[in-house]
């Protein structure tokens, strides 16, 4: 404990800001994937699986074509295909969200393991110098500026893109016709139907769009965050994303703020490891923080709701 207090300035400093954002980015992508379908009232339990398939596809395609752009595009396409299993199953054949979501997660885990064996002849993980990673943006003009340079100067393209995506989704959900229809379908499907909106069509669109973002989440994880594919490399980030989506009520900005909290827990934990905290405690920290934050936010929401209702009466 003493060592931690002595070295507090090494644990909490400027570079922690980027470290937090870096750990949060894959979760933000996942949370946005879950938020899109949630707006249409489809709980996306399969986020984890969509991400995992995206991660594998990105690495495989980038390895064979030598181009990260093709890899990312393929990952997004794969994400859409996997998401459509959920979409068709749920919308057309009445499958329970949780059940088919967990089924897709297991399918993703199994099929990536299977393909890792068959395509690369590997068990557990695959990495190669021939995988073309998502490049980083070096902002030369900032590198000399003291604090800003440390924070902004070396982001991956996907990390810049996630900020654009958050803003774009916020605009899409709350300022466009499609967004209004999407939310109408989610909240008042009968009213939406009466207003002449094709409910199922909007739902399919939402699922396909979420699949794209989920695939991108995976591609970022395997080509940006790291440059390799590891079995089950998403390690429940998809579910953290779903938790963050609950925290933010499927609002892109609030949802992303929730993700930053988990990223903070992750990166502080990683630093504490150097000071004698057992690695298992460090590794479980983001999960505990996620559960705690989710519980507190839901409790607060519930009591706020109760208050609002009681003032109406």
């Amino acid at each position, binding site marked *: 404990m003493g060592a931690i207090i002595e070295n507090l300035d090494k644990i909490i400093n400027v570079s922690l800001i980027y470290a937090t954002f870096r750990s949060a980015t894959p979760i933000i992508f996942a949370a946005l994937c879950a938020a899109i379908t949630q707006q249409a009232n489809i*709980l996306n*339990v399969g986020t984890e699986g969509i991400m995992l398939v995206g991660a594998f596809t990105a690495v495989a395609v980038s390895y064979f074509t030598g181009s990260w752009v093709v890899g990312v595009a393929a990952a997004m396409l794969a994400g859409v295909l996997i998401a459509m*299993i959920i979409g*068709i*199953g749920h919308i*057309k*054949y*009445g*499958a*329970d969200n*949780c*059940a*088919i979501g*967990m*089924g*897709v997660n*297991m*399918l993703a*885990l*199994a*099929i990536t*393991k*299977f393909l*890792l*064996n*068959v395509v690369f002849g590997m068990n557990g993980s695959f990495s190669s110098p021939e995988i073309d990673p998502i490049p980083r943006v070096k902002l030369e003009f900032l590198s000399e500026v003291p604090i800003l340079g440390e924070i902004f100067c070396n982001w991956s393209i996907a990390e810049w893109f996630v900020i654009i995506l958050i803003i774009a989704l916020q605009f899409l959900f709350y300022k466009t016709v499609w967004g209004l229809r999407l939310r109408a379908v989610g909240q008042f499907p009968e009213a939406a139907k009466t207003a002449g909106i094709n409910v199922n069509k909007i739902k399919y669109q939402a699922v396909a769009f979420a699949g794209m973002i989920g695939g991108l989440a995976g591609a970022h994880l395997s080509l940006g965050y790291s440059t390799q594919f590891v079995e089950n490399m998403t*390690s*429940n980030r998809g*579910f*953290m994303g*779903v*938790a963050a989506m*609950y925290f933010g009520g499927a609002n892109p900005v609030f949802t992303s703020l929730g993700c930053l909290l988990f990223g903070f827990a992750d990166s502080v934990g990683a630093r504490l490891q150097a000071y004698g905290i*057992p690695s*298992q*405690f460090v*590794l*479980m920290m983001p*999960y*505990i923080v*996620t*559960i705690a934050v*989710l*519980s507190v936010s*839901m*409790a607060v929401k*519930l009591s706020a709701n109760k208050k609002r209702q009681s003032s109406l009466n």
Partner: protein
Amino acid sequence: MNNNSAKAGFIRILVTMLLSLGIGALFIVGIGENPIDAYVALFKGAFNGKLRLGTTLAGFTPLLLSSVAFAVAAKAGAFNVGLEGQIFLGGIAAAYIGINWTFLPKPILFVACFAGAAVVGAIWGFIPAALKAYYNVSEVCTTILMNTVALYITSYLVSGPMSAGTANAQSHPVTVTLHQFMKPSSANLGIVIAIILVLLVIFMLYKTTWGYKIRTVGTNPDHADFVGINSKKVFIGSMMLSGALCGIAGCIEVLGVHGYFLNNFATGLGSNGMLAALIVKNNVVATPFMAFFLAVLKAGAMGMQQSTGVPKALVDTITAVFIIIATMETLIQFKEKAKKKAETEKKEG
């Protein structure tokens, strides 16, 4: 459930099973192997000889408990993905008691191991259940995240305070073990305990007030509250029962299969139990049979990988396809039209 719909349900499962084995066969053809050879090897790998049959039975035991545990929680409307964490913590509790409480006479120590495992599992089920019941926190999210927490807690304990000091992270051997009756396989008397427990649970669900309350809450919590059943308490109770069953599964794994706590031992046990229950729509009577079928697939996978070139990950793929098809309620409807639709669906997928 009347006879007719039970029969329809049975045929539905059978068609689903054949469909997923068929899709699995496509995968096998895709990698240039013979699907019939592979499935024969799979079957042989599960049943041929004492060792293999015993291994299948040993693998069946935890699946039986975890699948019924999932179904019980589901009967009250809970989606307990936390089976695995409950198994891990039940296992570590049993190991701790079995190693350290040697002052107890052996029969009582036995009971203490099982009771400790059940209590710890129930507590791990209580947390997400209470969060869901009182604060509406999605139990799917919390239970799955708690699985990882449980894994790291046990991993810390067996590589730190409870470590036996071996290269593999594991605990000291426990002082009481369940009799293994099909050596050299690890099939043990735990299977008898599991079967008795499952029969008790089925009896409880359909022949007692408690079971009636659980089923009422699962079907319609508002109605339950209206007729004076505390739906929150029943919901939490069923999750705790689910956790306790998983804890006992962990205890059987530790006392019966390994004889010590092995790091990571339960990985996959929870998700497969969940699969078995989901496929038969949480029908507790059908769940054990599905658990057995999955246990056979799992146990045979190794044999298939050894005698043909098909990796055992294929079996996981087949079971995942199985569950995806099974969840699509209206996919298989015993009408020519529906069947045609299903086939085009299959081609697309």
